[in-house]
């Protein structure tokens, strides 16, 4: 059941990203996806494996569902949020996108607890929400860094 649900959520995420009108280039999207993926993998490893605040199911199909959520769904939802709206959107609008997107990921996380893909030991959903908001802000900062130190420097070389 959990595998089917998460496979569907993963598929929906990919389709949404595919059809979305993107404001970032393919390379920018790849860089952001990989950065968010790296942070999310390390975070989940620390929380699940090292500190044991949450545990995952040892059933094979449920574990695959957990992998789909960790490696595909969460980074893609963050990426969809970062591509959403206009480049010159106000801070309030950007913040609204981040909060809505974080709530969507929180709903996906709640489904994983409900379907026993993951089990909470010593953790609060508020920590999860804070982490998801921080993950979006990290994405925005990486994008800012990428624009300043990679794209603009490259354009300087091109104009020489």
């Amino acid at each position: 059941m959990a595998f089917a649900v998460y496979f569907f959520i993963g598929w929906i995420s990919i389709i949404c990203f595919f059809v979305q009108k993107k404001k970032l280039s393919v390379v920018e999207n790849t860089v952001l996806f990989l950065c968010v993926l790296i942070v999310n993998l390390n975070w989940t490893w620390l929380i699940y494996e090292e500190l044991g605040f949450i545990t995952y199911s040892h059933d094979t199909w449920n574990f695959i569902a957990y992998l789909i959520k960790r490696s595909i769904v969460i980074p893609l939802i963050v990426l969809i949020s970062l591509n959403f709206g206009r480049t010159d959107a106000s801070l309030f609008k950007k913040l609204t996108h981040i909060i809505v997107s974080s709530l969507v990921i929180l709903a996906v996380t709640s489904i994983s607890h409900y379907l026993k893909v993951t089990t909470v030991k010593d953790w609060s959903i508020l920590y999860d929400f804070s982490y998801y908001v921080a993950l979006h802000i990290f994405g925005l900062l990486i994008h800012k860094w990428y624009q300043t130190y990679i794209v603009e420097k490259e354009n300087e070389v091109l104009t020489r």
Partner: protein
Amino acid sequence: MIWIGKFDINEISLLIFTVAAYLFVVFSPKKLRREITCMSLLWGISTGIVYDFTIGGGLLDLYRENDTNHYEFFDLVYYALYGPFGYAFMYFYEVMKIRKRTFGYYVAGWALFGVLAQWLFTILHIITYQNNYSLPFAFPIFLFTQSVTGLFYHYVSTVYPNKKLMEKEKIQTE
């Protein structure tokens, strides 16, 4: 979670490999744009991390990095070492002017090189196989990974430069 563990052959060789690999990235003649260089390094690092946290840990737990199955500082150095591999793949793709006809040979060559690197890592105790995993299994994994990397880079290099060339022309006309 431990800090370093026992500082011996695996830690020393990891440091040497990683420094040498990043020196190659810094001092090799520039063939890739900064955006692609950044993407290639991240691609390499994240590929390593995805595999290590998926088949190298969790339910499968097919291999151990460095001294323990837990997170340690030199695991980060090991992940960083994957970055220049991603860069080298895309760098030599350009240097050797890989096209459709040579794509298969190039990917297979990298897969063999990956297996060779894994073999070296096992000798140096950077990687220790467990749960019935052995070196031959690494070949299909590398073959799959390098194929995906090659196809993705082929797609990026056909889509991205056109836009950049247009920008360059636009800048020059201004």
